[in-house]
């Protein structure tokens, strides 16, 4: 096939390695997302807390800067595990909005015009398709969560000195694990609702419903049945409990979150999160097909 000849010719050149094909989906997915200016602007906005926290770390270690600016941040003790947890939680919420905005659209656009069959008619499996799409979310949310959080951790370690990093290595692990859990849940949820409803606006609305209406439903169940187990539907709270445990946050006492924080045991929070992930996997498995099968 050549433009000037206008004849068909088979391709006999080199091929990319089979394992790398999913990265094509990721590359095109990222480019499509950043074609939207509002999305790009919001992504930039998501880095504002990082800059704020970075300045706060510097100020906490520089009494001179505090004096020059005429503000009082306190000493370096304010940069604690709770401080990092708040940063992770802040970025997680911003990441959630970003995922709800851009995540479902990546998949619904494939369903809108039946292009899933074109993907799956190529040497790409369903798992690779999902992996490629999930990688977009992973890269995006990583840039907002654990990457800046670890940068803050390193900056704090550098400014603090005296082996602070080695003494608090568990904190780096907690940051990484917490963020990865959050990314996995949000990515899975965004893909599962997109595959289920196949309509971007509805999928985004459903994501917000899962994170805002389910907690209300769980609260109502707890209130009516006079039990605390209704709160397992409160996924944001469950994620916070898991994070609190990873960050070694005590239920009460100095540096604690208060007795209401651990509303259900940590194992119940894990069970709730894993159940949600399992439901997402089931939806993806049953709904992501090249062809719809009509059952008689």
């Amino acid at each position, binding site marked *: 096939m050549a433009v000037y000849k206008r004849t068909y*010719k088979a391709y006999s050149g080199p091929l990319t390695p*089979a394992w790398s094909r999913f990265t094509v989906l990721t590359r095109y997915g990222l480019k499509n997302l950043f074609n939207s200016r509002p999305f790009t602007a919001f992504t930039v906005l998501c880095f504002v807390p990082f800059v704020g926290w970075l300045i706060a770390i510097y100020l906490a270690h520089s009494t001179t800067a505090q004096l020059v600016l005429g503000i009082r941040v306190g000493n370096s003790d304010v940069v604690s595990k709770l401080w990092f947890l708040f940063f992770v939680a802040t970025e997680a919420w911003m990441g959630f909005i970003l995922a709800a905005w851009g995540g479902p659209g990546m998949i619904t656009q494939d369903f809108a015009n039946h292009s899933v069959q074109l993907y799956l008619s190529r040497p790409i499996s369903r798992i690779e398709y999902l992996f490629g799409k999930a990688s977009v979310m992973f890269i995006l949310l990583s840039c907002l969560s654990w990457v800046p959080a670890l940068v803050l951790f390193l900056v704090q370690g550098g400014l603090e000195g005296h082996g602070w990093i080695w003494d608090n290595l568990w904190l780096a692990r907690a940051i990484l694990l917490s963020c990865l859990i959050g990314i996995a849940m949000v990515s899975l949820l965004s893909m599962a609702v997109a595959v289920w409803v196949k309509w971007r606006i509805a999928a985004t609305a459903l994501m917000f419903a899962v994170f805002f209406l389910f907690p209300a439903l769980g609260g109502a169940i707890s209130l009516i049945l006079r039990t605390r187990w209704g709160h397992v539907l409160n996924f944001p709270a469950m994620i916070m409990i898991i994070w609190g445990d990873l960050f070694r946050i005590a239920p009460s006492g100095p540096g604690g979150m208060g007795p209401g924080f651990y509303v259900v045991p940590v194992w119940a929070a894990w069970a709730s999160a894993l159940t949600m992930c399992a439901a997402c996997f089931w939806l993806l498995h049953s709904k992501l097909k090249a062809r719809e099968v009509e059952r008689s």
Partner: protein
Amino acid sequence: MPATIEMQNLTVQLGNRTILNQLNGALSGRCIGLLGPNGSGKSTLINTLLGFYEPVAGAARIFGKEVKNNLRELRAMIGYMPESDAFIADMTGVRFVRYMAELSGLPRGEAMERAHEAFFYVGLGEARYRKLGTYSLGMKQLAKLAQAIAHGPKLVLLDEPTNGLDPEARIRMLQLVREIRDTGEVSVLISSHLLRDIEECCDQVLILKDGRIAALCNLEEERKANLKFLELEVTQGNGFLESVRGLGCECASFGAGRVRIVLPDNIDLRQIYRTAAEHEVQIRRMNYRRDTLEDIFLKAMAGTPQVAPVQQGSANGSL
């Protein structure tokens, strides 16, 4: 050399329904037509060849490789143009085709080059930077063809490629299919409701009915066989038919002077003229009666679908 597509007791069920029922046969034409009424299993067969549906029994092979066990390898060799709309509306045509070519394994640069070439090849060169959502139906069909051939497949599966096309676009599409076929580098399987489309492009036809093979014939051989099949309109002449039979021809009269004759290989047309002259019979019209694909199709639809292995061969042959 293995057949392009082989089916061995291929049975596919969707839900509780058996859609393809013990299909047997080997398709080795350069351009294979897949015919059948709605619900006969044409699209299901294509989807099974692509590995979208798994057979409950039997197997399908492409280029001698079983589909089930060599899915990734075979998909790299296949180009698929689906029946329904299949595109990403927000993408420009050339970017979409490049994307699909990259997914098939072409490196970025080659994918871009081939995407441009494919667009020029199908005649959409000028529209390649327009978003696919703005394309007309005919342009979308051509864009689908472009994405199916951009990565240089060895087998192209075209599901109703002329659906919704105006006559001009249909002619263009069929011309492209014939060109692709004639390169000899690629085999084509076309599913269509339109017998004329199949007749114009294909050298082998598989007719499905109720999920079973109703006919599997080689159109080239049919055409050659039909050259010995005469239809005459003659004035009444005593003894003409008997004399023709005496030459060793099989013939039948249908009244009003209409006669059909099957010429054996050793009989020359001039002998028929001579016999007519001897009996003072005027031949007012004579043509080679072509057993059209429509005849073959109608015959296949009227007959009982075959479950047993189908022998490739003539679907006509008797008066």
